[in-house]
């Protein structure tokens, strides 16, 4: 746990020092909401449409952020420095996924109210608890897959291309579940509670891919 | 899906025929394309093998005697036949 916290603290400190990732994610999300407003020619949306817009925006913002996750490690020798230390290799995965999860959470603290302000028809207040439950599980999926995929992509030539083309299909089941669950929450008239089976699918997806990533991550580091 | 299938009327044979034929032709065509690609690779392998043999012969025996050369061309002719 100690090395995980050390890496996580280092990552958060770096982000606070450089502001390379989070502000870009936030700006990207807000711009995307504006684009959706014009592309859909709607001033308010609700239900499945609202859920779709929110999910897709967060998905792409997450891919944007995960692309930067390992850049400092690769360009400034962080991988080597980490590998020289007598610590478990998977602690890097845990730390990066945790950092990604925190970035997503902060992003949503800004982006969800912005979404409610700019596009969402029904009021956000009563829908917030349900939405938080759905997004928390979705963020876990985005953090795990984002970390895994960007760890794969960081050593490829076309890393900016490789990580979204692998990440998008891999995230599709989670995306389906998130969009369907959020649709119920964001229903136009009465706010519904997110259906259990979608939360279950999301949780299952999180667990399976977290374990898988944990099992294979070592092989992405050794040389 | 039952309902979807049930809703779709059974196509008469003359309309259905081309579709079924198309599906099976796709299958056969893909196999043939695959065989063609493999054939090309096989030709390349054979050519490289021939080159390797030629190189080895030159390396082992830079000036082959007349006797050996004629033997080799005989072998080559056998191959062609």
């Amino acid at each position: 746990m100690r090395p995980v916290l050390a890496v996580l603290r280092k990552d958060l400190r770096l982000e606070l020092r450089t502001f390379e990732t989070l502000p870009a994610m936030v700006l990207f999300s807000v711009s995307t909401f504006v684009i959706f407003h014009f592309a859909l020619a709607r001033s308010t949306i609700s239900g499945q449409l609202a859920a779709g817009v929110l999910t897709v925006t967060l998905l792409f913002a997450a891919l944007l952020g995960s692309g930067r996750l390992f850049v400092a490690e690769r360009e400034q020798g962080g991988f080597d420095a980490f590998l020289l230390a007598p610590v478990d290799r998977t602690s890097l995965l845990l730390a990066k996924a945790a950092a990604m999860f925190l970035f997503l959470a902060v992003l949503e603290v800004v982006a969800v109210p912005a979404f409610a302000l700019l596009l969402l028809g029904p009021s956000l207040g009563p829908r917030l608890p349900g939405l938080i439950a759905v997004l928390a599980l979705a963020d876990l999926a985005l953090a795990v897959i984002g970390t895994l995929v960007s760890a794969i992509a960081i050593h490829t030539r076309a890393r900016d291309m490789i990580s979204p083309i692998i990440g998008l299909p891999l995230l599709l089941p989670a995306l389906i579940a998130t969009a369907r669950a959020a649709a119920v929450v964001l229903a136009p008239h009465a706010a519904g509670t997110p259906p259990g089976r979608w939360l279950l699918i999301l949780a299952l997806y999180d667990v399976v891919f977290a374990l898988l990533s944990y099992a294979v991550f070592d092989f992405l580091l050794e040389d | 899906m039952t309902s979807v299938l049930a809703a779709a009327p059974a196509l008469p044979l003359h309309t259905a025929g081309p579709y079924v034929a198309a599906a099976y032709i796709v299958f056969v065509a893909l196999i043939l394309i695959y065989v063609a690609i493999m054939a090309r690779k096989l030709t390349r392998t054979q050519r490289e093998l021939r080159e390797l043999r030629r190189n080895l012969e030159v390396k082992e025996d830079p000036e082959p005697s007349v006797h050996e050369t004629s033997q080799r061309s005989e072998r080559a002719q056998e191959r062609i036949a």
Partner: protein
Amino acid sequence: MSYGRGLRVLSFVTIATITLALALVFFYAPLDVNQGFIQKIFYIHVPLAITALCGFVFGGLLAIGHLRTGDRKWDLRSYVAIHMALIFGVAGLITGSIWAKASWGHWWVWSDPTLVSFLIVMLLFATYQPLRFSIEDPERQARYASVFAIVAGAFVPLNFIAVRMAQGFVHPRVLTLTGGHLPGSMGLTFAISLIGIALLYTTLWKYEIAAKQARMQLRRLRRAALGEDALRPLGRSAAPS
């Protein structure tokens, strides 16, 4: 060179099975009550799709072998398994599309969860070759490809569950993957077709590996016999080397 072994027998068995399957499809299996003649596509489309999916999972299992042993021959097996599955998958998508056009009037329908899941799986595995191609160091390429193959292999069943749920349980399905509710004669025909296509997959898998190994051996021979200089440098390639 062990991959060539048994290939001849396997090829004959494959040809015989596929011939038998085609004969059964067109001369033995009865016309479907609802669909009529068009249902014959089922006997080629579904086995192709099932074989492709199993091939993807198979590739993932072989990749586990690579990561466990570090032996690159497993990577070659895994690569060829996925490569073949991709070809079979494309055939499955095209035949499925033709079937959709014939019975529903559209080249693509979103109402069939199996078809949609299959498309997603194909989209994911379509990135396998570009991923390999963009990693130059052959060892890293093999390792990263194996990681991808394992994750993507596990993705296949999970994806099917998620998509199936997204479409809801409203419609009971006649054409389940196992062909469960088919009348006996149709079931038999389907089973023989499935075995035939699976055999075809195995044959081509073995054949492709044998061919690739032959080329590697040839290169090794050249190096041993003529020295390093006689080799043209390997171009960048998605295939194991």
